[in-house]
């Protein structure tokens, strides 16, 4: 039974004096926020500060004790919850793909309940899988436990986009991933966000992620909204010590000139290294098993470059050697200055580099967007 399309686009989301108490403790205390359509607003704060509760009130998973939440001037409490939620995409850290359904069934579930025909569902699922860079013919019929964490999170996003909701709620979507994978998914998400053109409310505890992805950042503490503003506003005009300390990690950019690569190195783990003579088929299974999205290709004496799992999955000739498909990336010595290396990388459009210690690979460098802005 199809549910009503409640809104095609978001013009505004307003929280007015929203309060929620559990026993005697405030989960949210008199929070008011105005969000514009098309904005990406990040909620950040210590655990228990009320950021997730605020998010879950917007799709009525939690209902406020007092105050109102308006989407396009409609009070969400007056909307039918099932219809409301089908108009809002939801992505969470634990992903929650249903283990008894295939990937296609997971993504298409709500469409089926809405009474779409099989063909329409299949086409939509294929489109979405390709949109999140998973080759649909390879993944549609798999079960969630056969996917790596990063792949599962991509499916989670595809599922949230099924009904083409104008609003996305994302609760630490990259929180459970390892740092390297997290950076890559952030990068991809940053890119597809433009294509999505949706209003997004995003919860995180990672200030770098907030700086990188958010148009505005809302800082919460002790059930209250402390400050909301752009990264610059928060860094240069924090309302109190607490805000200053949260954005503090941003301040290290000020000392960028003195930082060396070794200060920001992501150490190499053996599991990333694959021999160049490996064929694509075995490299894919090895990477899926190790739950990694990028592999370093080595020829025995040193690294040749990297290969990405997504690219390998798309290769036609699965018998060829991975050495033939290597993407070269720059390499720097660990004692080089960070700023100059970053400049080089930015100029050539590289999103990662090898870090060498005594001619041997010892780690990676990921210049994030915040850095690029500072030195740009």
């Amino acid at each position, binding site marked *: 039974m199809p549910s009503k399309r409640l809104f095609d686009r978001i013009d505004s989301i307003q929280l007015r004096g929203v309060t929620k108490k559990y026993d005697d403790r405030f989960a949210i205390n008199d929070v008011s926020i105005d969000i514009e359509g098309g904005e990406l607003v990040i909620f950040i704060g210590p655990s228990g500060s009320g950021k997730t509760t605020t998010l879950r009130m917007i*799709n009525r998973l939690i209902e406020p004790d007092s105050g109102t939440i308006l989407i396009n001037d409609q009070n969400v409490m007056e909307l039918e919850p099932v*219809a409301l939620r089908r108009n809002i995409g939801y992505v*969470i850290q634990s992903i929650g793909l*249903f283990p*008894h359904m295939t990937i296609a069934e997971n993504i298409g*579930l709500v469409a089926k309940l809405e009474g779409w025909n099989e063909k329409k569902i299949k086409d939509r699922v294929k489109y979405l899988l390709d949109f999140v860079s998973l080759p649909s013919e390879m993944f549609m019929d798999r*079960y969630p*436990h056969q996917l790596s964490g990063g792949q599962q999170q991509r499916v989670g996003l595809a599922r949230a986009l099924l009904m083409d909701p104008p609003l996305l709620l994302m609760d630490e979507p990259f929180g459970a991933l390892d740092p390297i994978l997290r950076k890559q998914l952030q990068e991809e998400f940053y890119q597809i966000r433009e294509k999505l053109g949706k209003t997004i409310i995003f919860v995180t505890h990672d200030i770098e992620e907030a700086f990188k992805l958010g148009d505005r950042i809302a800082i919460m503490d002790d059930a209250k909204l402390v400050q909301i503003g752009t990264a610059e506003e928060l860094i240069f005009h924090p309302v109190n010590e607490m805000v200053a300390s949260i954005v503090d990690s941003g301040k290290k950019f000020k000392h960028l000139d003195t930082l060396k690569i070794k200060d920001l190195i992501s150490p190499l783990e053996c599991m990333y290294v694959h021999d160049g003579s490996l064929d694509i088929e075995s490299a894919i299974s090895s990477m899926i098993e190790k739950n990694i999205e990028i592999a370093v290709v080595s020829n025995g004496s040193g690294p040749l470059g990297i290969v990405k799992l997504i690219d390998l999955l798309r290769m036609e000739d699965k018998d060829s050697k991975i050495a033939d498909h290597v993407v070269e990336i720059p390499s720097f010595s660990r004692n080089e200055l960070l700023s100059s290396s970053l400049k080089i990388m930015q100029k050539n459009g590289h999103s990662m580099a090898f870090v060498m210690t005594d001619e041997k690979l010892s780690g990676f460098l990921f210049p994030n967007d915040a850095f690029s802005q500072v030195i740009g």
Partner: protein
Amino acid sequence: MDKEHKGVDSLLLSDLIEVWETNSLTLRTIEHLTMFGIAIVLASIIGVFLGLFLYSRPKIAHPMLNLLNLVETIPDIPLLVLLLPIFGLGKEPTIVASVLYSLLPITRNTYTGLKEVDLKYVDIARAMGLSEKDILFKVRIPLSLPMIVGGLRIALVFTMGVVTLGGLIAAGGLGAALIAGIQLYKINTILVVGFWTGLLAVIFDGLAGMIEKRLQRRYGIW
């Protein structure tokens, strides 16, 4: 040496055929499995529905499960003979006793399975816009399936046991053949029927175990 072995083997085989025919074991096996099948089907239907019902009425779940627990405490033969005044001798009391015993594991596992589905799945289902009915049928029930089959497997073992005892109250089946063997003190009969009864039970248990494992594996719950 070889000849002697062959002699023993053919002796056993001919004994087996003789025992099988004089005790009409084909018929006995059919009787046995018919009672078993009817009891299991009844117990599964009633047990799963009762589990669903208790899930929707959490207030009576505890007293009801306690009652079933009490039934479970009654030893098998006393339970069988207590049913005689109501159902008379034969297959009926045997099937009823099997169902009574099997209800607890099936009902309890269905109820617990539904109740203890990982809340993150329920939460995401709700957030996706599934109604409570959809959550029950698309998420909770499928996710409790391995647990429900686990209960069914316990019920299979109970039912095999009670059906065999049915021989004592004139229900026929392989229990009747065992009684004939013991009363006439026919060693061969006891051996053949005893092993055959045990083997059947182990096979059914093994099949159920395989289904259980497959379900768990498919759901990624190793």
